[in-house]
């Protein structure tokens, strides 16, 4: 930290334009890299439903998949109500049948 930055911090002054620029830049780059095409999300949802259905009975209609962006990071959020759990045995049968 430079002397100026230290003084600034001690006086509790607002951020200078350099740190504002850096923050904006970091956000912009995160956003740029997360440009996900809609059909990719759809494909992902199909695949996820298939995998989850092996273990749980789910309500396919009310399943939602979303990308949420918050400070500095982003999250893939899947929300699905579970109707019932499948038994492991059934699960193996289901796989063999597939």
């Amino acid at each position, binding site marked *: 930290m*430079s002397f100026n930055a230290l003084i600034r911090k001690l006086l509790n002054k607002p951020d200078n334009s350099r740190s504002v620029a850096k923050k904006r*830049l970091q956000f912009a*780059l995160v956003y740029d890299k997360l440009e996900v095409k809609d059909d990719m999300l759809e494909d992902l949802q199909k695949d996820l439903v298939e995998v989850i259905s092996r273990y749980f009975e789910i309500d396919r209609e009310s399943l939602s998949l979303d990308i949420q962006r918050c400070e500095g990071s982003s999250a893939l959020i899947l929300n699905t109500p579970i109707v019932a759990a499948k038994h492991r045995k059934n699960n193996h049968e289901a796989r063999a049948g597939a």
Partner: protein
Amino acid sequence: MDGKVIVVTSGKGGVGKTTVTASIGAALAIQGKRVAVVDMDIGLRNLDVVMGLENRIVFNVVDVVQKKCKLKQAAIKDRKIDNLFLIPASQSDDKSIIKPENMVWLCNKLRREYDFALLDCPAGIEQGFKNAIEAADEALVVCTPEVSSVRDADRVIGLLYAHSITPKLIVNRIVPKLVEKGDMLSHVDVVDVLSIDLVGLVEMDDAVVVSSNTGNPIVQQKDSKAGKAFNRIAMRLDGHPDLPVEDPMAHDSFWKKIGKKLGRKKQE
């Protein structure tokens, strides 16, 4: 000869690609290497005027690719520096006239003829950019300490990685005073955001404007900070990769500045 083809690129226009290409080319030639600088900005040539060779153009890079002339015929010898050659762009064609496969052929020829070939890439990430990076061995990404420039640099770096080239970064036009005041991104900030190796740090320097006005190489002006920086970049590219990048901010410590200010007051 088994030379290296280095593409100089940036994504955003107006950050100093052409000056960087001309200056590093000149510095390498002064260090005794045989150097070609190639203007890949087909339709908008500029490298010739920056180098002061605009009156000597007969053939251009499109002629070479279309085999209307030999590489040697299109290469214009610099006025002052031995071993430095310019291969100009054509001014009348479109960027799509050169195909990626032409570039593979051209770069092989350049490697045979020169120690270093620097390709001045056009701004943008379209065909002209794709051509320029197609057969390059290395890449230099130029950016200025501005949000828009760094963002574009990041995009270009991603495209270069996808093309199996690991680029190195040149931060151009840094103003140490502004950085210290907290009003400009520092090279540390830029490297932190882009996370690639820094190969050069060039200060904002009025002498660059003068040298491009006159078409004289900045690296031959001994008192120019930018000229010195370009010379050091050339050394790093040519066998001295560990030469430290000088931090212009480091010269003026707090106490030194006080000393300077006191000194100035005394003079007044």
